[in-house]
């Protein structure tokens, strides 16, 4: 059964309990929870702000890092370009030096070649002439000497060339001359020479006969400063001149060819 006094008392008790718990429990606990919630939210906001600041700093750092990387790349690229330019410059300089050395070496080689060729042709000429001279000396005989003197005498008598006439004129003025031969003149030959010269001059002519080894199978007539000769050496000298000229022309053509090739190699 319901005891109404107890019901009323329990209602009062319950209301008192509500008041007590509201004061001791709910209010305090709710305030503590709200305070904690505020702290958590403030920490959360602080963390969010810190995170935003960190993100901003991160972005700035990344941007700076990117900038540093770009600058480094630019520096590296510039350094590469400098190195490449320097390498090309050095390569060009080395190439020039090599070309210079090659040109000098080529020139030196060419000079050596020319010197050698010059020496060779000189020696060749000398050898050829020596051989010819030796051969002619060995072949010289009375008949040959006669022929030589005969040819010389006839030349004086005909006076066809200007040189012969100048010598005769000089003899006529001085009345003396020197006859040199490469071989010993016999009396007969001396007389024939005197006779021929006497025909051209009225006065007596003082003739001095000399033997000279320089004249190879030859004879020369010298009167004062005028000179008339028939000499194998002259022939040999002219022969040597012709040979040297021929070799010189050949060497010149080869030199031109070599210089053309060197120019074509040097050009890029």
């Amino acid at each position: 059964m319901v005891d109404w006094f107890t019901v009323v008392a329990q209602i009062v008790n319950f209301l008192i309990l509500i008041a007590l718990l509201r004061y001791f429990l709910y209010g305090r606990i709710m305030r503590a929870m709200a305070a904690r919630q505020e702290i958590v939210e403030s920490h959360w906001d602080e963390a969010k702000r810190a995170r935003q600041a960190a993100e901003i700093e991160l972005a700035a750092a990344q941007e700076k890092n990117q900038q540093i990387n770009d600058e480094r790349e630019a520096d590296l690229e510039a350094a590469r370009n400098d190195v490449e330019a320097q390498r090309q410059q050095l390569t060009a300089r080395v190439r020039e030096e090599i070309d210079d050395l090659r040109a000098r070496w080529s020139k030196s080689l060419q000079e050596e070649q020319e010197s050698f060729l010059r020496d060779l042709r000189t020696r060749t000429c000398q050898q050829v002439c020596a051989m010819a001279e030796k051969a002619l000396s060995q072949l010289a005989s009375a008949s040959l000497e006669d022929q030589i003197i005969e040819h010389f005498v006839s030349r004086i008598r005909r006076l066809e060339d200007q040189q012969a006439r100048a010598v005769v004129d000089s003899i006529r003025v001085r009345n003396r001359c020197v006859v040199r031969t490469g071989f010993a003149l016999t009396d007969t030959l001396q007389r024939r020479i005197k006779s021929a010269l006497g025909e051209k001059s009225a006065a007596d002519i003082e003739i001095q006969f000399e033997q000279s080894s320089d004249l190879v199978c030859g004879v020369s007539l010298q009167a004062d400063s005028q000179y008339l000769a028939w000499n194998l050496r002259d022939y040999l000298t002219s022969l040597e001149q012709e040979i040297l000229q021929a070799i010189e022309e050949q060497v010149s053509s080869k030199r031109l060819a070599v210089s053309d090739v060197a120019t074509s190699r040097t050009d890029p």
Partner: protein
Amino acid sequence: MNIADLSPDDAVIWRWGVISLNYTIAYTWVVIVALSLISWLATRRLTSAPDMSRWQNFLEVLVGTMNNQIREVSQQSPARYLPFIGTLFLFIVTCNLLSVVPGFHAPTASLSTTTALAVCVLVAVPAFGIAKLGVRGYSRLYIQPTLLMLPFNVIGEISRTLALAVRLFGNMMSGAKIGAILLAIAPFVFPILMNALGLLTGLIQAYIFAILAMVYIASATQAHQHHLDKAGGSGEVPPPSS
């Protein structure tokens, strides 16, 4: 089985005229003192820091859970309802849990106590409803959907309050009575099992009583909200039906 086992109302300690101090009132005071003492001790040194006492942690979990339950049921801010609903739950659950203590007579096993709590709910429902909707707005609920439904709505209001009181009383009284009877018939083992079952039943009954009270209050306070929703008002979720 003594007289207090039949009803704690009948075990009178002191009487003066119509005023009688029985076990129901006395043990209610014990519960009030215990709850107040625990609350006071636990909330003496509250801290907002993460490091807190176990009692504070326990009470924060308890209050937080009650807050969430009220918010889920009412779809409103729980601050207004927490003292009433929370005290209902704490009082009932404390009485029911202490019933296993030898010598303690649960006040909730008294029909007077459950009636008193039901009367409190009976008064609280229109009180919260009028506070929220106003007298006219709340009174209009009784003539919904038509004026003819007025007596049925009044009868429904009274009958559900009566059911609230009798449900709690019946469960707690039966638990106490079965425990006493079993103690007389089979004094070993079975009373322990029945007490354990009584703990579970007491916990569930406390939860049911508090939740039903909240549902009644929510239905009274959210009718206006539901009406506004139909008219295109705010978009809050309609209350669960009672």
